């Protein structure tokens, strides 16, 4: 028996989504074709688009299907940078973004501005006000941080961006299904989502692009998705995304309460262990717990928990299989040792009390051994 506590890396495919996807997977037709099979595929695609838009409180014309959250983030950051380059060369991104935003911004060299975050892991409005000016094309601040679960003031930063004429983007990949996400009331111009974080298939996501925004495409081809994302749209996957998103927002209060309860059990259990500090906040995502384990290497804890049947993560990127210290925790002012001694436990649609039980049962022994191995 294994206990999966890494939903922030991806949730298993929801059975209802699997059913829907297999029902149509064998249907032929390129949605761009004008004949009967093409029109049928197109109809399925547009139906998915409308349902996803409803789930995100956006207009169907604002949905651009992509290959996932990473592509959506790249399109937002680099598409804005490219579209507005003359006159607005700069892009401002927070210091705690997912690499899909951070690396896209980094590729712009000194055109990118990194806006620091408070030690709490929440963005500070004063820092954003100072960073934004009329040379900025875009401000990008994620809605929920995928490592710590910290909820960010995206609407307030969107206002600051608009005040200087910049566009506002938010990576909502970790937010969807866990906090209320309404594109229309957010004030945002661009929003990224990913299917497999909410129990949909891997390989599909969307960028919500406000009507009238003249974003530049990054790739070229048949001009699909309003010229913004050429390539045959994978209808089956798009249907999977729409189904998963609908399921994720179907009963928000109940799900938030359920996940929050599990999160609180885990947080309370961790707080009772020696040398453990929580990096996630009570007002953060109900689905993420992040803690630093003093005197331990996260790698060792991961190995031990893995051996005990518990799947979790350090939350931060791997280079060649070697975990790097968490950039997010470093940006929050933690030391390298702390940023290398932290783990993330994340919940999703299939999480149960058994997962929390297994983790809490495995931790004391794992902690003791990890300490010994780091002595």
């Amino acid at each position: 028996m294994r206990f999966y506590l890494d939903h922030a890396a991806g949730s298993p495919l929801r059975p209802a989504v699997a059913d829907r996807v297999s029902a149509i997977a064998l249907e032929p037709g390129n949605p761009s074709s004008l004949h009967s099979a093409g029109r049928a595929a197109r109809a399925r695609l547009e139906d998915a688009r409308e349902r996803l838009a409803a789930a995100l409180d956006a207009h169907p014309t604002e949905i651009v299907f992509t290959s996932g959250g990473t592509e959506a983030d790249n399109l937002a950051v680099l598409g804005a940078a490219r579209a507005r380059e003359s006159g607005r060369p700069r892009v401002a991104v927070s210091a705690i973004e997912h690499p899909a935003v951070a690396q896209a911004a980094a590729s712009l060299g000194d055109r990118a501005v990194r806006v620091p975050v408070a030690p709490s892991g929440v963005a500070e409005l004063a820092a954003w006000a100072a960073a934004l000016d009329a040379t900025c094309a875009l401000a990008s601040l994620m809605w929920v941080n995928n490592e710590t679960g910290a909820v960010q003031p995206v609407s307030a930063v969107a206002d600051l961006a608009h005040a200087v004429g910049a566009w506002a983007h938010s990576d909502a990949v970790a937010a969807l299904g866990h906090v209320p996400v309404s594109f229309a009331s957010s004030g945002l111009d661009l929003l990224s989502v990913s299917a497999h974080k909410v129990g949909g298939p891997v390989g599909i996501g969307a960028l919500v692009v406000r009507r009238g925004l003249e974003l530049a495409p990054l790739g070229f081809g048949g001009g699909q998705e309003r010229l913004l994302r050429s390539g045959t749209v994978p209808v089956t996957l798009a249907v999977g995304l729409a189904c998963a998103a609908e399921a994720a927002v179907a009963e928000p209060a109940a799900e938030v309460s359920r996940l929050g309860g599990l999160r609180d059990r885990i947080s309370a259990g961790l707080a009772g262990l020696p040398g453990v500090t929580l990096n996630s906040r009570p007002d953060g995502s109900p689905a993420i717990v992040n803690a630093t384990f003093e005197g331990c290497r996260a790698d060792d804890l991961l190995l031990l928990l893995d051996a005990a049947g518990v799947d979790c993560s350090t939350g931060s990127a791997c280079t060649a299989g070697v975990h790097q210290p968490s950039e997010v925790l470093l940006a929050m002012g933690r030391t390298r040792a702390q940023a290398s001694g932290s783990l993330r436990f994340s919940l999703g649609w299939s999480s149960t009390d058994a997962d929390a039980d297994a983790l809490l049962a495995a931790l004391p022994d794992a902690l003791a051994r990890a300490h010994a191995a780091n002595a």
Partner: protein
Amino acid sequence: MRVLVAMSGGVDSAVAAARLVDDGHEVTGVHLALNRNPEAYRSGARGCCSLEDSNDARRAADIVGIPFYVWDLSERFATDVVDDFVAEYAAGRTPNPCLRCNEKIKFAAVLERGLALGFEALATGHYAHLTRSGELVQLRRAADAAKDQSYVLGVLAQEQLRHSLFPLYGTPKAQVRAEAAARGLPVAHKPDSHDICFISDGDTAGFLTRALGERPGEIVDADGVAVGTHAGSHQFTVGQRRGLRLGVPAPDGRPRYVLAISAADNTVTVGAREGLAVSTMRCIRPTWTGEARAGEWRGLVQVRAHGEPMPARLTASGGEVVIELDAPASGIAPGQAAVYYDDDLVVGASTIAATS
């Protein structure tokens, strides 16, 4: 037993892991990331621990069916092995980094970490044979004499050997490759890595020059007369014939060899082949595989990874081991390890400090 296998991405460690699983152990594979700036691809037989090697190890673990992790020991490796390598050359000695790695990294840092995490043993793909005599663990040569790696394990002591496993002890290399192929391991035909793992282009002199810079000095003959110049004494090793660039041939027309290196005055002494002959070695920092020895005994001495075992009289006293070879040998460099054997049994090792 819960066994940790160090998987380099090569065929030996892959087969070692597979055999341990067959033997019923609970096996976990770990690849050691030793290079701070790993290259993406493995370039033939040179170098090791590129990202490609890491992936090869991962795939082998997938096929063998065991958990797999990568441990970043690059900082420690840099300090304990690479910096030591450079420092030894700077001091005019010839180090053996593979021995140092086994001594400080594989059977120290990795073994200790593994034991603390609950593993009972560390296994590798080394060709060496462990036997027991009562409570003592014995280290012996592997069945495949040409591949035998007991020399580089000669610095290990009881605490390490007690928790080590070398599953390939009794199998010739060719058979190991055949076994890998039969097991469906893609690394069955991957070339072995030679030379020094952290010098992937094989250019040791170039590596040392980048690390130590150029320090021009004199090349002198056995009488101390200058016969040439060099760009750094660290570019030479005792016994070397190539790369001397002396310009003027020796009076007797015969080739000259590096006889000695003095880091202190940055001189390299060259001379005829006879000057390389060594009969006696004074060695320091002895380690013992089993019980420490004192006094005199006869045994076989090896001073290179795949060198000839040489009959000798050994005398251990006061923290030193003096080795008197029955027959003179050529080109033995201070800094190298002397590993002594009773037949195929490893007795111990020490570092050659001086030769005569």
